[in-house]
Each structure stands twice: as C-alpha cells, then as structure tokens.
C-alpha cells in the first residue's frame, strides 16, 4: 500500500471525483494556477482546465452563493474557503440559504455541494487565520459537518461528501496536510455519520476530532506502558453524529474524556458530554466526564503561547491518566 500525504489524498479524491462525474467542479480563491493556499488543488487545473477549476476574486459570499446556485441546478460544486476563518464572510449564504433551501421548499430541491476549508492552529498564523468554528455549523440543521483526521479518512470522506446530496462543510486541519498514511489508489468512500473506533481499550474512552485523534493515539501508546488502555474514538462526521459507539464505549469504560482544538465553551465537546450524560451510559460512569479543549482565548501569535492554547499529547496523557486513576 502506498503512502500519501493528507493533502495528496484530498487531491486524488478531487481528481477521481472530477474524472467520474463531469458535474463536479472546483471553485475558490487561488485554487487554479496557484494550486491552493495549501497546495491541495495543485495540478488539477492542468488536468481539468479553468472551466472546472475556477479561480475567483476574493468574494466568499459569492463563492458560497455560486456553489449553492450551481448545486440547485444540477451541478456538484466543491468550493474552497481558503482559511476557515474566512467562512464568516459567507455565513449568510451557507446558513440561511444552503442549509435551509430544502426544508423551506418543503423537501423539494437539494443542494449537493461541499465546502472545503482548512481550520486549526499551530502554524503561527495567529487569531484571524487559525479558527476552529465547526460547532457553529453543527448547530445549523441542514448542514453536514465532516472532519477527517488522517490521509486515509480524508480521501474516503471527501468522496462520500461529494456524493452526498446535502451541503457538507468539510473541515481539514492545516497541521494534517503533510501527515502521511496508507491510501488505496482506487476510489473508496467512508460512510458519513459513522463513528470510528480508532483504538480499542478498556480503561478510558477518549473522543477526539481532527488533529486531536492522532494526538490521542500517541497518548494511548504512552499510557499503555503504564497499563492504562485508552479507547480512542473519532466521530469523523460531527453532524449528523453517530453517537451509539460513543455511548457504548462510555458504558464499557465508565470514564470519558473529550478532546478537541476549538475553545471549550460552546465547543463540540459539550454535545458529546450531554449525549453521554443523558444516556444509559450514565449509570455506568465511574468518574465525572471531562473535556480537554482549547482555552477560551483567540489563538495567540507567540509560538509557545499558541502551543499551550490547545490540547497536546502531554495534556491528553495527563488528563486521561487522572481519569484512569480516579483523581477526578
């Protein structure tokens, strides 16, 4: 099995989707000639031409609207917002149009579009280029929200998202673009709304998203040396969420830690905690449910401050260990 980077896996997915279906096209800023700010779309304009790999002016609302209009009328656009932070300029279109058109029209019409965007911190891009806003979109009925945590998942989830007849917010992570993984060459799809148990374990359930999944797995390897076995769960799709494996796992281990980069207050972790606390797993809890998330601050520029703002392998180890040892 050959290895691809996360970015290459996405590119291959886009290419294969465009090869298979002439209705699929790409639109976004600097995705054509420049190849995308993170290089994901590099080379695609050469293969598919400027009509299908469309460079736009700096017009996020326009990009979103273009995707919606095209999706409403038979096409399958994959838009790119250059940094998740800029999606705020297209919020009206995504939240009030894309998400709601089908429902407002009584179930007629659908908007089969994907909006890709890199989120997250760790590159020193500071507060306005490091956002993790996934929970904003989780909160909007009608949208789907997907966060692939590794190269293999990236391609499979992207192809599934392009196939999905709903608007999908597809959130990549800047720090993951260069990470490698085994990626099958043939097209394949990983089903949306199917939570994945990345690692089985009996002592503590750790639910993590995006870049936190690999950090949790590293933490698990370390803690295994101490005889503490973590079960690491990656929802892959945040909305609609497949919560059964999470509830079952919490019931099994009795201890739950939720880890995400976005700041703690109002973050997706609250959703997981609420679902588990309200489920039958409650009676099997041996410790309070804990969240490990970003601090409630904008992402700082200074490298060390930036590092300390979000969960890292060490902090995951520390929290999981405390839970395992009944220190909470």
């Amino acid at each position: 099995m050959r290895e691809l980077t996360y970015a290459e896996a996405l590119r291959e997915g886009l290419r294969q989707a465009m090869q298979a279906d002439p209705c699929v096209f790409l639109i976004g800023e600097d995705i054509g000639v420049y190849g995308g700010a993170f290089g994901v779309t590099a080379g695609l304009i050469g293969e598919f031409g400027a009509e299908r790999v469309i460079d736009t002016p700096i017009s996020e609302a326009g990009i979103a609207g273009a995707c919606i209009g095209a999706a409403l009328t038979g096409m399958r656009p994959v838009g790119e917002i250059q940094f998740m932070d800029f999606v705020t300029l297209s919020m009206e279109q995504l939240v009030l149009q894309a998400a709601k058109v089908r429902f407002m029209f009584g179930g007629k019409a659908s908007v089969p579009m994907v909006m890709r965007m890199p989120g997250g911190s760790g590159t020193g891009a500071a507060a306005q280029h490091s956002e993790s806003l996934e929970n904003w979109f989780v909160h909007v009925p009608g949208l789907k929200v997907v966060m692939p945590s590794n190269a293999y998942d990236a391609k499979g989830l992207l192809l599934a998202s392009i196939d999905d007849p709903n608007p999908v917010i597809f959130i990549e992570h800047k720090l993951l673009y260069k990470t490698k993984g085994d990626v099958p060459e043939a097209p394949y799809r990983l089903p949306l709304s199917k939570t994945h148990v990345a690692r089985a374990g009996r002592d503590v359930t750790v639910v993590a998203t995006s870049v936190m999944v690999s950090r949790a797995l590293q933490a698990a390897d370390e803690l295994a040396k101490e005889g503490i076995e973590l079960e690491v769960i990656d929802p892959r799709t945040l909305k609609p969420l497949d919560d059964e494996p999470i509830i079952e796992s919490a019931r099994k281990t009795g201890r739950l830690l939720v880890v995400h980069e976005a700041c703690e207050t109002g973050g997706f972790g609250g959703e997981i905690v609420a679902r588990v606390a309200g489920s039958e797993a409650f009676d099997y809890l041996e410790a309070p449910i804990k969240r490990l998330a970003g601090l409630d601050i904008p992402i700082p520029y200074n490298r060390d401050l930036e590092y300390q703002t979000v969960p890292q392998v060490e902090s995951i180890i520390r929290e999981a260990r405390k839970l395992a040892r009944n220190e909470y």
Partner: protein
Amino acid sequence: MNTRLPVDAIQRYHDLIESLGPDFLKEMLQTMHTIRAFEERAEQLYSLGKTHGTMHLSIGQEATAVGACNAMEDGDYLLNHHRGHGHCLAWGSDVKRMMAEFIGKETGYCRGRGGSMHIADVEANNLGANGIVAGGVPIAAGVGLSIKMRKTSQVCLVIFGDGAANEGAFHESLNMAAIWKLPVVYLCENNQYAMSMPYQKAFTIENISERASAYNIPGVTVDGNDVLAVFQAVSEAAARARRGEGPSLIEAKTYRYKGHSKSDKQAYRTRDEVNQWMEERDPIMRYAALLTTAGVIDETEASAMRETAVATIDRAVEFAEASPWPDVATILEGVYA
C-alpha cells in the same frame, strides 16, 4: 417618469404590440389584476387573523413582475425576493398552491414550511423567494455558472430591491457574473424605499443602473410601472445573455403602495406621495388604458378582468382553507436529502 397619455406609448410600442399579439398582451393585464387581487386578499386574510407571521405586499409593483417574467422563456430560472408573490404568480405558479402556502397548509408549494417569504416552485425552475435581502443574488451567479458549464441556452433572472444593491454580496455576484460572462439578468426593482430608508439617503447616484459600469456590463433604467418597458428591457437582456454576452443590470423604478410589511407605520413617507403614485402612475390603470386605446381590448373586457381575478382568488382561498394543515408527525422531514 412618463405620466402622459398612452398615445405616446402606443407610438413607442407599436411594433411590440403587433408582434406580441392580443392574447399575450391581454394575458399580461389579467395577470396584473390577479396579482393585485391576491395581494389585497392576503392583506384581508391577515387582518382577519387567518395568516401567521408577516407579509410583504407588492401592490403597485405589478408591472415589473409581469413585464419581467413574461420576457423569459421556458426553462429559464427565477430567483426573487421577499416581496415576491407577484413574481411567483407572473412566472405561472398555481394561485391555489400559493395561497395554501401563504396560509401555511400542507398543500402549499412548500408544504407550509416556507411561507410567504420563501415560496418556490422548483419544478418550474422558480428557485424561490428569499427572506434575506440580496440572498438570492449570489445564488444567481451560481445558476449562471451552472448554465454555462452545462452549455444550455437557459438564462437566470434574479429580482432584487434597491436595498439589496448595497449588500456586499450584490457586488460579489455582479463582479463574478461579469468576469465570467454568466447568463444572468440582474433586475433591480427599485421601489424607492428599503424598508424605511429612502433611496436618496442610501445612494449618491441617481440610478442604480449606473453601478453596471463599475463591472463593465450594460445597465439601463426603465419605468417600472410600464409593463412593456420592463418587458422590452428584460427581453433584450435575456437575449444578450443567451448569446453568451454575459449579464446585464436593469433598474425598474416603481413604488409600493403599502408599508414594508404589516408592522410598518410608514412614518418615513407622506400620504400625498403615496396617493400621487397610486392615482397618476398606477401600472394597471396605465396598461389598461394603453390596451384599450390601442384597440386590443374594450372597456368592458378590461373591467371584467378585475372580476375574473377576484374569482380566481376566491377559488384559491377556498382551496387553501379546505386544505389540511401539515402533520406534526412529519416535522423532521425535509432537512436532509
């Protein structure tokens, strides 16, 4: 504003009247009556407590709706705005289903889920009214892009108000349509007020159509209460788009008789101003006068159209009132495909 007798108009439109033929011309007048009757009845139903929420009446703006929609061809797309009952009716929607939607019934175009501001007739390529000012404008660029990529000869008509021309998304959309030569007709229905904001206070330019030059596309201002003027301008723009020459911006200057919505006390304009438009520039009155003077219809026929319209609305209300409410058990439907 042209308020002179129809004689000038007949001369100007002589060829057009010839080519369109009496049936088509009469149909347009009837539709204008239907729209007005619909709007008046909607107001009445509201005051009787039979509708929920609010509504935005387009009484006085019938010429823009009818002229524009009739200038488009089968297969073309429509995106319109919150004051859109007229556009919807002019596009050929079923009055009964519109009325049902307005009241919130299961048999409405949107199964009661959309309401007045979000009525859509997707099968007829009517991609919906929009509750967000300029909400449909960026979508129109997307539709145009789709048409171009699919290489069909369709055109997208997007109707928005003067207020929308100041939204950022408006500029993004026009710019994109211009650079990519998308087949979109941008029709600005300038009824002089964006809610309470008078046109003069929101713009430094006399005509919104001047903004077209910023994007290097054709722009024209027409009398929005002159149905044939609107028809002509939109036809030309649509033809241009169909030839692959890209988008156009049309400004139709008109006036709304009623407040912005039902809760509008209209403190921002005078009674005199309203009356002046109603009595001297009413679009239905002018068009009826034109057609009678041109000999296309006689007075009796013209006034009978009003009754026909009312009867149509009566039947629509009957249908709507007899229709079932949506079943709460289906409340979760339609969120995801």
